[in-house]
């Protein structure tokens, strides 16, 4: 009875998608898109959002076909036991690596902006501890946590965007396609977005715990669109204020955007600290989702339901991956590599599953 009450609602699902997608990458995303698309970055972002949308729709479709199974579960049903489990192992490994790298990315941003002398390990350990102590909770708690943080993440970001409006220049964002547009560059720029935001895969672990898994499409897509819209506005605003040339000289354009802002009554003379706090919240919710996939995934894969133990065991592994890159440049190389060749193909993966499931006539029992 109590279990029925603790089911995840559609609204919570969309908030999970929002807070998972808005995360570490928020600070540096603009830079990578501008690198490829120049002043066409806002449009590239839009295209990227549409590409990602296809991915999430596919994911929900598979989820609806197997409303009682997580991705680990239907992998085995659709692809057969051995191959399916291999795919699951691959997905879990991917997310372990991503969790490590994103933790490192967060720590680098912290080091670069506020704690320049503190060893990077401190920020990493603090965040991993936080995820570790939360990730073994129930799915309902996971949903509550995401739900709670979303307003705390969105309100400061939107506030900064409103204040930044004064410094925006129209001539920074046009032409919409960028200068000397080439299809290849543009698509590369557009693909940055689904690369950074492919982490919505977490919903494949949540759908079976929903009140009405069959209606999950609405929640997931709405959440995706809202998160996409916010990222679009952030990218557009950053480009509008700085222009593509200036952005290319920065590591974290969004943070500097927060630094440009003067609040009318000077309570806080620099508002970037507030942005940074809400960004830390966003990082946490994103990493929590990664951790959730890792812990739940491993437990389901090995039919070993000691979430607490697994989350404690996963922590040192994530930590080691996080401190593996030598410096910030290596780290970004690794991240781009992993997201490009692993996370991006994952967008097509649900469709592959759908096709195989249709051929092999596999269906989740209702």
């Amino acid at each position, binding site marked *: *009875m*109590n279990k029925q*009450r603790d089911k995840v*609602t559609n*609204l*919570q699902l969309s908030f999970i998608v929002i807070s998972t997608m808005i995360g570490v990458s928020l600070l540096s995303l603009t830079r990578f898109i501008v690198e490829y698309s120049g002043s066409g970055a806002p449009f590239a972002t839009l295209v990227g959002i549409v590409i990602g949308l296809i991915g999430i729709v596919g994911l929900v479709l598979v989820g609806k076909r197997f409303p009682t199974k997580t991705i680990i579960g239907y992998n085995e049903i659709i692809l057969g036991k051995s191959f399916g489990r291999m795919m699951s192992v691959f997905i879990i490994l991917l997310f372990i690596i991503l969790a490590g790298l994103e933790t490192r990315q967060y720590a680098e941003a*912290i080091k670069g902006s*506020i*704690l320049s002398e*503190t060893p990077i390990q*401190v*920020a990493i350990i*603090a*965040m991993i501890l*936080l995820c570790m*102590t*939360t990730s073994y*909770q*129930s799915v*309902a*708690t996971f*949903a*509550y*946590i995401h*739900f*709670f943080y979303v307003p705390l993440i969105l309100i400061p970001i939107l506030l900064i965007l409103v204040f930044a409006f004064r410094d925006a220049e129209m001539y920074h964002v046009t032409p919409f396609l960028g200068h000397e547009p080439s299809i290849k560059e543009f698509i590369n720029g557009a693909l940055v977005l689904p690369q950074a935001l492919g982490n919505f895969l977490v919903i494949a672990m949540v759908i079976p715990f929903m009140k009405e898994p069959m209606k999950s499409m609405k929640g997931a897509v709405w959440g995706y669109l809202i998160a996409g819209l916010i990222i679009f506005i952030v990218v557009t605003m950053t480009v509008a204020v700085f222009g593509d040339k200036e952005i290319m000289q920065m590591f974290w354009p969004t943070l500097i955007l927060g630094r440009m802002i003067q609040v009318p009554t*000077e309570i*806080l*003379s*620099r508002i970037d*600290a507030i942005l*940074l*706090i809400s960004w*830390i*919240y966003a990082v*946490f919710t994103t990493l929590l989702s990664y951790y959730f996939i890792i812990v739940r995934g491993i437990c389901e894969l090995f039919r070993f339901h000691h979430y607490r133990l697994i989350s404690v065991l996963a922590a040192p592994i994530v930590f080691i991956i996080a401190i593996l890159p030598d410096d910030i440049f290596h780290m970004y190389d690794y991240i781009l590599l992993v997201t490009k060749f692993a996370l991006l193909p994952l967008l097509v993966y649900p469709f592959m599953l759908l096709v195989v499931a249709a051929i092999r006539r596999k269906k989740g029992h209702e």
Partner: protein
Amino acid sequence: MVLWKRKKKSDKEQIPSGQIIDNSQDKQLTHDLVHNIDTLTNVFQKDTDFSSRTFHIVGETPAAAFYISSLVDKEKINRDIIHPLQETNSRADRTTLLGKKNLLLSLLYDVLYYSDGEIVSGYDEILDAILHGKTVVLVDGYHDALILDTFTLEKRGITEPESERVVRGPREGFIEVLQTNISLLRYRLPVPEFRAESIEIGEKTKTKVAVCYLDNIADDDLVLEVKKRINDINVDRILDAGYIEQFIQDNPRSPFPQVQNTERPDRAVGNILEGRVVILVDGSPFALIVPAVFNQFYQTSEDYLSRFIMSSIIRFIRFVALLFSLTFSSLYITVLSFHPEMIPAQFMVAASSGRAGVPFPVVVEVLLMEIAMEILREATIRMPQQVGGALSIVGVLVIGQAAVSAGFVSPITVVIIALSTIGSFATPSYNAAIAFRMLKFPLIILSGIIGLLGLAIGLMFIVNHMLSLRSFGVPYFTPLSPWNKEGVKDSFIRAPLRWFKERPSELHPKDRIRVESSVKEGPTNPLANRKRGKS
């Protein structure tokens, strides 16, 4: 050997009276009154307040009354028990009375003017009755006993609750006696569905605990769970509701209270009407309310009495005060020691002047001051009231004035500490305020180590913990997360009363609708219908 023997003897002396009976051969009462009197007096022979009185019923049949004089109303015994029994000119004909087959029954039915009486035969029950302030009448020739409730207790009058004062609203508070407390509830809830189920717990104290709820509103599972948890308590004593609270809460390791307590009957009734369960404990002026969510801890019963805009603003201020008490001092450390760029330059220049000459880092300064503040607060609570006032003056003088002029702390720190302390006083619920006050110390240390990041991470630890808490299955942050539109109307804002159409759904009340919705328009103007100039 001798030693051992002696020890055993002393052991025997210490064994409570009840167990001697068990060891003696005559567990049962016999028909012989003299023997019975002996056995009973034997049990209580050392107790000064035990009385036994022998007399003759209608001048003939020997009988005896036993009671513990400190627990009974003696006048009542004289007037309503001894007097009618001895009365020779009673209504009932004495021969008919004595000729009756069962004298005890007819005494109970015909002679005694007593509302609360029964006939009991078990020995233990008789002892139990004596210990609970009842008077036991034994009649020669019967091994049963008449038990009459003559219990009376010195109790204080109903006074205004000390811990939950209101400017406006009822001044009644619960007192220690369970019966009175139940009467206070029933007086406000004159409906047949109101239940006050009694459970006795505490191996030695045998405390009565009453579980009060509305049968047609409260969720059955919730009531069952409450009763189950109370029944599961295995302890020798329950001296106050606080004992119960610690045994029935979901997560005993959490710093946050998961059970609400109140001294106010009106608040208890309000909660019962929402579908919650109120637990009253004999001997405690505090009622427990379950399930409790975080929102309730900064609400007062007065919020519902004033207009909604005012109460919404005040609730919001209380919420801000709560946040202040938790984060203000650590935010101050963060800003001063790690990120002075956050404050305007003018203020930074001023702050650095204030700190000139202070020998410690801000963290140490703040920690010292916060600890001093806690000591001061604790001292004021425990002091007698007359001394307390003097103490707070001394404390304020010492800490505020002398510490600054001695160069021990900077004046700005004093302001910050004062704000964070006052913030915690603005929280109506004492146990929630204390949780936040204590949690501020780890935050201070964390932000002393890694500044803003530490503060953010520390806050997240606290919030994540709160989000994973449940009180009787209800998530602690309802109605915020999980979101509940109806519930938000009564959270950090208080919507107009007529908007409250449904009971909080997280409690799964049987009857969700408070009142059948009837279309009601705003107040009409009785003067509007009059035609002009006619009156």
